[in-house]
């Protein structure tokens, strides 16, 4: 299986001066060289490439912390509605459909997270984190409160650190306790009048619920800080517990995780941010509200401003709305139940130790004396996608596994088989893996040492 680059098939250089040019020469480039192929050739190119790609419609995608669920087809049709294809600079009067849908989604997300106000502007989870931290910062500044630190558990997603840093905060890393949860004593030591916020994921990145969450919230609040909820693992809690009820002040939602919008090979996502009432005036602008049966945009009084040029990833939000409307209360609660059941059932059938429990929607198994990354590569040969490996770091040779609710028992059994068969294979087989895939093991080191980032950078003679 090998598909040449578009440029290797046929390229043409076109002079912009050919034919009539509506611009003087000094305003135009001379020429442009691009692939030049017919529609049938392009259709085959992309069809073949698609056949060289794993997806959630092909089989399990148990990447821990990524919540790769089935993406219902009908949500695509809704997003393709011609009436959804509107420009953000239309008048509010002529955009009532869009605004109503956004308003209702704000409302749904508020209910689901136990939050009082929700912005839909952040175009991804990390952008949501950034927006949320901006809100915290604006809140403290409004109080004349100069705080310089954001506390983040060592096991947190890398984005938490980066988002806090982007907002100008110093990041204070918090170690885990022996049970894999927040070390409350360490937190007590870390929290101070410099603490702007504590960012937490709950269940955390090994699937454990932070049992001391109420105490943690009190500690942070007593010090004048805010509690931020990273929504990456919200799928474990749907209908079972709400961040707002646990004392969180700010949270983001990852709609491509919890609400099954397609991940699209890397994006687009959407990272709505919910806040408690006290923080609503700081949300990004504009915001949608309802007045006398119609919907309007307004700028919250002390808005942090913009985190996206317009109002975010609209079409993704439409799909998230569709998913929530389809499931309703009963479906949402069932999603978390089955996600947790699946993780527990799978762990039961995988021949690996799981150091931390009781876990919920995901578990961090340890590959012990095997290299977790090699085991993962070998799993590819058994026709499944492997879990997240070597993360979180405090679990040795971690294989962080999240099957989600969409897997059937049969497919979990297949997945367990792939784990166990890989573990039973020799070191040589592991290091030589994968061999039954489109590409064999790819040299990452060389890719980074000798970056070739476009077809221009490839040697002509290379195959």
């Amino acid at each position: 299986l090998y598909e040449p680059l578009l440029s290797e098939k046929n390229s043409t250089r076109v002079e912009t001066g050919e034919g009539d040019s509506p611009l003087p020469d000094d305003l135009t480039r001379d020429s442009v060289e691009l692939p030049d192929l017919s529609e049938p050739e392009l259709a085959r190119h992309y069809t073949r490439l698609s056949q060289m790609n794993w997806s959630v419609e092909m089989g399990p995608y148990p990447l821990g912390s990524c919540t790769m669920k089935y993406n219902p087809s009908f949500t695509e049709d809704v997003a393709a509605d011609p009436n959804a294809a509107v420009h953000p600079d239309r008048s509010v009067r002529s955009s009532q459909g869009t605004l109503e849908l956004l308003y209702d989604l704000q409302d749904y997300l508020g209910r689901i997270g136990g939050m009082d106000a929700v912005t839909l502007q952040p175009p991804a989870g990390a952008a949501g984190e950034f927006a949320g931290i901006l809100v915290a910062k604006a809140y403290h500044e409004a109080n004349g409160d100069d705080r310089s630190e954001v506390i983040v558990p060592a096991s947190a997603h890398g984005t938490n650190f980066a988002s806090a840093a982007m907002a100008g905060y110093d990041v204070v890393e918090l170690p885990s306790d022996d049970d894999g949860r927040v070390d409350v004593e360490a937190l007590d030591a870390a929290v101070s009048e410099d603490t702007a916020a504590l960012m937490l994921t709950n269940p955390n990145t090994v699937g454990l619920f932070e049992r001391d969450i109420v105490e943690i919230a009190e500690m942070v609040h007593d010090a004048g800080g805010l509690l931020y909820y990273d929504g990456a693992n919200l799928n474990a809690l749907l209908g079972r517990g709400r961040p707002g009820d646990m004392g969180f002040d700010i949270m983001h939602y990852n709609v491509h995780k919890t609400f099954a919008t397609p991940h699209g090979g890397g994006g687009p996502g959407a990272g709505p941010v919910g806040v408690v009432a006290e923080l609503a005036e700081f949300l990004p602008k504009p915001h949608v509200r309802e007045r006398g049966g119609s919907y309007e945009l307004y700028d919250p009084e002390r808005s942090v401003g913009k985190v996206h040029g317009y109002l975010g990833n609209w079409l993704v939000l439409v799909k998230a709305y569709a998913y929530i409307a389809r499931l309703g209360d009963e479906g949402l609660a069932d999603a978390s139940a089955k996600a947790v059941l699946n993780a527990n059932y799978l762990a039961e059938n995988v021949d690996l130790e799981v150091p931390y429990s009781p876990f919920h929607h995901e578990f961090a198994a340890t590959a012990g004396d095997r290299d977790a990354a090699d085991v993962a590569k070998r799993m590819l040969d058994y026709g499944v996608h492997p879990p997240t490996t070597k993360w979180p770091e405090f679990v040795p040779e971690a294989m962080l596994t999240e099957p989600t609710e969409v897997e059937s028992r049969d497919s979990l059994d297949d997945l367990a088989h792939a784990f166990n068969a890989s573990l039973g294979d020799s070191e040589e087989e592991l290091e030589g893996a994968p061999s039954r895939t489109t590409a064999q093991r790819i040299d990452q080191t060389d890719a980074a040492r000798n970056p070739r980032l476009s077809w221009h950078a490839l040697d002509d003679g290379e195959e």
Partner: protein
Amino acid sequence: MTRGSPYAPHTDAETEAMLEAVGVESQEDLFDIPEGVRFDGEFGIEARSEREARREMSRTLAKNDDLTEFLGRDHHSHYVPALVDDLSRRSEFLTSYTQYQPEITQGFLQVLFEYQSMLVELTGLPVANCSMYDAATALAEAARLAGRVRRVSGTRVLVPEILHEGKRGVLDNYVAGTDLTVETYAMDDGTVDIDALRAQVGEDAAMVYAENPTVRGSIEPRLSEIGDIAEENGALFCLGTDVVALGLLEEPAAVGADVVVGEADALGMPTSYGMGLGLFATREEFLRQVPGRLVGASEDAADMRAYTLTLQTREQHIRKERATSNICTNQAWVALRTAMHVASLGPSGLVDLAKQCVTDAESLAAELSGLKGVRAPVHDRHHFREFVAHVDQPATAIASDLESEGFAVHVVGEHRLQVCVTDLNAAKTDALVSAFEEVL
């Protein structure tokens, strides 16, 4: 068969068997949530059948008026070939994750590599990442890059006084946590006032940002001078543009651009309420300061060419708070669509489309200028897709009247409208002109 989530495949019998295998009696037993913070599941959200959900949402969306939009201002769209919808919707692309296992995701990686290559060709810069959220965040990331790179010592980011408010807003937020500051420089008749810029820039400038075309659609006539000014003052030159304009207007590398940002989703996406695709390209020397993901070529164990995400040590999941950016999920699937659209057009198609953006705007401006009480374009410049028109009557009233006639245009001043024409609405320009006549 299933109750609860229609997307969870468990039959009751399977659920029972699985619970037994796990060794608990009920699903509830698997949740380790203290009683005080448990929730009863009653959000008050009613479940709908697929048919009901579709019908309900379709009705809601139908509350958007059926307008012909002559709107642009950083959010442009062109006719998207059916091929793009069809192929991009293939589940192998749409429902895949980031390519952390490249051996089974060569297809998407190659598409992203091709996307990067197209932008390298169009910008003339050797490094293009595989997406930012939109033009605004791309610009903001460019400023942060300018703040990081060694050869820049200044801290002032200079942006044009005529700039989309969304870009300015995002930029302000992205630099708030750094020692960078943002200030505006003057425009002259719609494009950069070169003399004013030269006077203002100084050695403490970190970056000079200019756009071609501007948010008003004007084509910048003195780009390379801007590049020179930036260079002479040790600042980076960041150029904002879009993927169609790149097909015809001056090549950014040729005018000294250090970073190119802008919207790439003018190709590949329908009008989508501002959802974007930030393009980001830069020089080789800034490679390790680039935000976002990069796809590189490498070899596999069988010595075949293969693609992989590379230079990930720049990224947040490795470098945490020292990452070049917090971006993780990006706009990969939009980039795939854009690449498909560019490939569908081919070089002639792209150049022709870009030329049409000039000629259509020119013609429409001329026609509107023919009406009593309208003068267009206001700026004595060439224009790309859009232009500003002066109207003698209050602009808001005219725009509102036009809306009643079924057309949407921008109000950009008390007596100024902005009008954008692309292949999507070009067939309706006569109708727009008639509507203008009607409402003037």
